[in-house]
């Protein structure tokens, strides 16, 4: 049955080209005469250095590699000009290493004439690495004599320690009538975008030119410039549509290595494409976190106090570790009113793979903890879990757990009300009782949220450039990379609406640092919001300009007498129209361009806490959601099937329902993977789940038809009232499924992922617990 959801007459602007197989991604545009560049990562290949996660490079024997026909150059750390340090905030990551700090660290770069020569060249390299003591546990890494990853770093292995506090949580917990506690853990998660990290580059007379799959083209120039000693403004980065990003392409992945290759290729273009194994080995990851929580409440369910301690394993380099922890800590108490709060976080270096940005940015990790304890609290109080959440849910006028007032559009209560009325929730008892043989059924609910934007401490700004073309159409110079979230199409739609033009009249230029204006990274749920706001302003300026120019030609003295219609400016009273195509010919190019910027609003009067954070604290705008999961557990195998799933999201006003649903469904799918399937295995710094046959993301047979509902509001500061919804969907499934499993098994699982093995153990221990009949045939 074809679903009856809204069928928009105008599909996404990028959809048809992609569906025709005509859209060209970064690697597709690489010239035919490229040199092939590849990084040598000795910790990854069989040999004496296999699995070495911490070591000093004594020497690299390049002779055998150079003897391979087709190998052109082999570069090592001494060949890196500049600082040989990349990083988004902290410049602590070498482009090529003298000291290896995780098993995927690169020690050499090979340039070759062909893919096969590259492969042979890489296989012929030998590195002599003196192993150093290594540490893989963040809590051990904090101990006094732990091996140090960055001896120059003042805090030792502690990248950042921070506290967010409000009121007096310690005393409040002591006196709270009901307190529930729990220790939780979340694993590393792999982005597993279908397009691995890739790009190509060439040194041209004007500077370095690079086409790369990146979420941060403007910032990349500075990372490359700092690392390689190049003037960032001489670097041109073009960012075509990405084949997925999710945070894993925020910051230099191939960029600095490609830049180094291009500096050494005698002007020839160079290409680099990580295969899947290298993508898993060397790509950034979601932070694994340990969480210890205590939540206190009154007997009527009013939340009183939260205290928690969080430990983040940030791996070998900082990337965005501090920023992830910041956002995590802001969300640690959940979307609730809690007067007394103490959140303490430590972000720690280890010799594990590098953790960085990933959709849900620290919030995915705390969500199963705060929601897990809300469920335990509800059970302890004999209260309905939805009612408990409804009672404490943040709404306008409230203050969140970080002490920030909710001044923006906020509709979590409405999300919960929709959940309460949803058949998945109302029918849960009957559904549970109808379980087939060897099956236990459960239904779970989660309330989640996710802040938007960069927060305080740096300008969350975008600059939109809009041009009327020589033929009277329009070009939007998109400056925030589209990694599939559809922001480029949203901009085309916005421009069409603002300018009252046909969709077909609006063209898009994808991010190009030479043609578009700096607008920050494609991340943080900010792209449509911030650039959208800038674009609305640019459209307003364009509209005013076109009316003013037309007034001269139409001999009209009052601009209010004119209007923009598709393809023309029209005098309302007489109907006389001046075609835009005609106007375009008598305007100079400069006069056909409008540029406007927008800055995301920040919290005024931020609370007097979170002082350890240089950037981020606090955020002001949040998306909210309530998620419902219906699961079946096979008692014989522990396998969990998500039978039904609903995501009810507050993203302000819904500009494009299809795009809104796409984000909700996609986020939920990734969250279900995180909760059930994605079991990243790491042992002494060596990744055991090396490829897609062992690191499993959900297939079409592993997910239900995820339903997406909207609790619509209107965010006054957002373009046409919208908020960013790209991330919040990611955070719901782990807590919702944990709740559903608890409902099914009578046992709470606190360690993600909920593998069949863990669930089977819970099935057994649940059977040994109270004999409350949950329905269904028990084996």
């Amino acid at each position, binding site marked *: 049955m074809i679903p009856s959801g809204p069928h928009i007459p105008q599909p996404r602007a990028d959809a048809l080209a992609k569906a*025709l197989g005509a*859209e*060209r991604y970064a690697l*597709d545009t690489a010239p035919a005469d490229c040199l092939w560049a590849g990084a040598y990562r000795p910790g990854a290949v069989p040999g004496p250095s296999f699995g070495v996660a911490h070591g000093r490079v004594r020497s690299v024997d390049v002779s055998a590699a150079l003897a391979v026909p087709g190998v052109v150059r082999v570069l090592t750390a001494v060949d890196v000009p500049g600082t040989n340090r990349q990083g988004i905030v902290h410049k602590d990551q070498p482009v090529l290493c003298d000291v290896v700090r995780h098993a995927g660290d690169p020690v050499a770069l090979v340039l070759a004439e062909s893919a096969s020569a590259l492969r042979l060249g890489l296989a012929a390299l030998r590195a002599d690495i003196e192993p150093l003591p290594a540490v893989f546990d963040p809590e051990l890494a904090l101990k006094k004599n732990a091996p140090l990853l960055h001896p120059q770093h003042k805090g030792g292995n502690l990248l950042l320690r921070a506290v967010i506090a409000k009121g007096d949580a310690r005393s409040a917990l002591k006196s709270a009538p009901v307190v529930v506690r729990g220790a939780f853990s979340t694993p590393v998660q792999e982005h597993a975008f279908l397009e691995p990290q890739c790009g190509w580059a060439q040194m041209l007379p004007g500077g370095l030119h690079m086409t790369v799959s990146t979420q941060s083209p403007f910032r990349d120039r500075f990372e490359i410039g700092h690392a390689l000693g190049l003037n960032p403004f001489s670097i041109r980065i073009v960012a075509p549509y990405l084949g997925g990003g999710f945070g894993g392409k925020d910051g230099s992945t191939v960029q600095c290595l490609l830049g180094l290759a291009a500096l050494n290729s005698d002007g020839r273009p160079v290409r680099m494409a990580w295969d899947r194994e290298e993508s898993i080995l060397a790509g950034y990851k979601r932070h694994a976190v340990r969480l210890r929580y205590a939540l206190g409440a009154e007997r009527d369910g009013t939340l009183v106090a939260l205290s928690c301690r969080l430990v983040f394993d940030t791996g070998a380099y900082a990337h965005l570790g501090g920023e992830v922890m910041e956002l995590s800590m802001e969300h640690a108490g959940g979307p609730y009113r809690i007067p007394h709060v103490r959140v303490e976080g430590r972000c720690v270096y280890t010799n594990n793979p590098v953790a960085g940005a990933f959709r849900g940015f620290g919030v995915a990790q705390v969500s199963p903890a705060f929601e897990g304890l809300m469920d335990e609290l509800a059970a302890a109080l004999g209260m309905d879990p939805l009612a408990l959440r409804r009672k404490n849910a943040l709404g306008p006028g409230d203050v969140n757990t970080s002490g920030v007032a909710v001044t923006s559009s906020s509709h979590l209560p409405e999300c919960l009300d929709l959940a309460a009325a949803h058949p998945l929730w109302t029918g849960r008892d009957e559904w549970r009782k109808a379980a087939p043989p060897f099956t236990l059924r459960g239904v779970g609910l989660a309330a989640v949220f996710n802040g938007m934007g960069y927060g305080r401490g740096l300008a969350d700004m975008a600059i939109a450039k809009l041009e009327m073309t020589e033929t009277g159409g329009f070009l939007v110079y998109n400056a925030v990379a589209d990694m599939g979230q559809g922001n480029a199409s949203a901009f085309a739609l916005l421009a069409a609406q603002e300018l009252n033009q046909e969709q077909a009249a609006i063209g898009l230029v994808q991010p190009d640092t030479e043609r578009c204006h700096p607008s920050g990274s494609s991340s943080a749920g900010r792209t449509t919001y911030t650039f959208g706001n800038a674009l609305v302003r640019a459209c307003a300026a364009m509209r005013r300009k076109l009316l003013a120019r037309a007034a001269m030609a139409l001999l009209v003295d009052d601009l209010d007498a004119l209007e923009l219609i598709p393809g023309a400016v029209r005098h309302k009273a007489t109907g006389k129209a001046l075609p835009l195509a005609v106007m375009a010919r008598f305007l100079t190019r400069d006069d056909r361009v409008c540029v406007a910027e927008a800055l995301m609003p920040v919290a005024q009067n931020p609370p007097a806490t979170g002082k350890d954070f240089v950037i981020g604290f606090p955020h002001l705008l949040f998306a909210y959601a309530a998620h419902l999961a219906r699961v079946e557990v096979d008692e014989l195998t522990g396998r969990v099937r998500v039978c039904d799933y609903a995501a009810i999201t507050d993203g302000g006003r819904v500009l494009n329902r299809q795009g809104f649903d*796409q984000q909700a469904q*996609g986020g939920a799918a990734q969250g279900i993977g995180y909760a059930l399937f994605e079991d990243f295995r790491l042992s002494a710094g060596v990744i055991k789940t090396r490829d*897609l046959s062992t690191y499993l993301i959900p297939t079409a047979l592993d997910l239900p038809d995820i339903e997406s509902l909207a609790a619509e509001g209107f965010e006054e500061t957002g373009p046409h009232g919208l908020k960013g919804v790209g991330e919040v969907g990611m955070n719901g499934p782990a807590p919702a499924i944990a709740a559903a499993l608890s409902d099914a098994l009578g046992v709470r699982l606190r360690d993600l992922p909920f593998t069949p093995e863990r669930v089977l153990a819970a099935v057994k221990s649940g059977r040994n617990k109270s004999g409350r009949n949950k329905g269904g045939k028990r084996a």
Partner: protein
Amino acid sequence: MKLSFHLNGTPVALDTAPDRRALDVLREDLRALPGHGHTARGAGEADEGRAALDVKEGCGTGECGVCSILVDGEHKLACLMLAAQLEGRRVTTAAGLGAPGRPHAVQRAFAEMGAVQCGFCTPGMEIAAAALLARNPAPTRAEARRALSGNLCRCTGYVKIVDAVLAAAAMLRAERAAPCETYESGEACESGEAGAGEGGK
């Protein structure tokens, strides 16, 4: 070896190593052949020749499906095929499902039903869908999911992709039911088969 086969309805012939991956033949080796010019987009891009750049590489081990192609109408994976195995075959990639200027129902459905986000899995998904619809013109959602089960998507959660497969099935059934009313006279009617002249299994 001298390799010749049909790619999206027209013959190609080239010299390549017999153990070259089919994926590399399609993405790299075919660049040397003069192009048709109807697939390349944008200005300033390297000449693609006859390369089938819609066939992607995501894993190289058969685990992700983005390299999906039809070989004599059967859904196969180009990363696990050798050049020698293409000899004499009719190969269809996603870009070859429709005719120039007339997208295939599967492509229209994917675009309209919101099944395309980043788009990297899309060509492979369309191949899987086309193979399914050639055998089963009225699949259920479960059958569609099964047909797509070897094609990973990280963006969509598959819901709208399944919607698109069913929508395409309906479009194709409607076209078959009243083909000559749908198109202007003189134009060939679009069959339910994958690619020009390609038959289902």
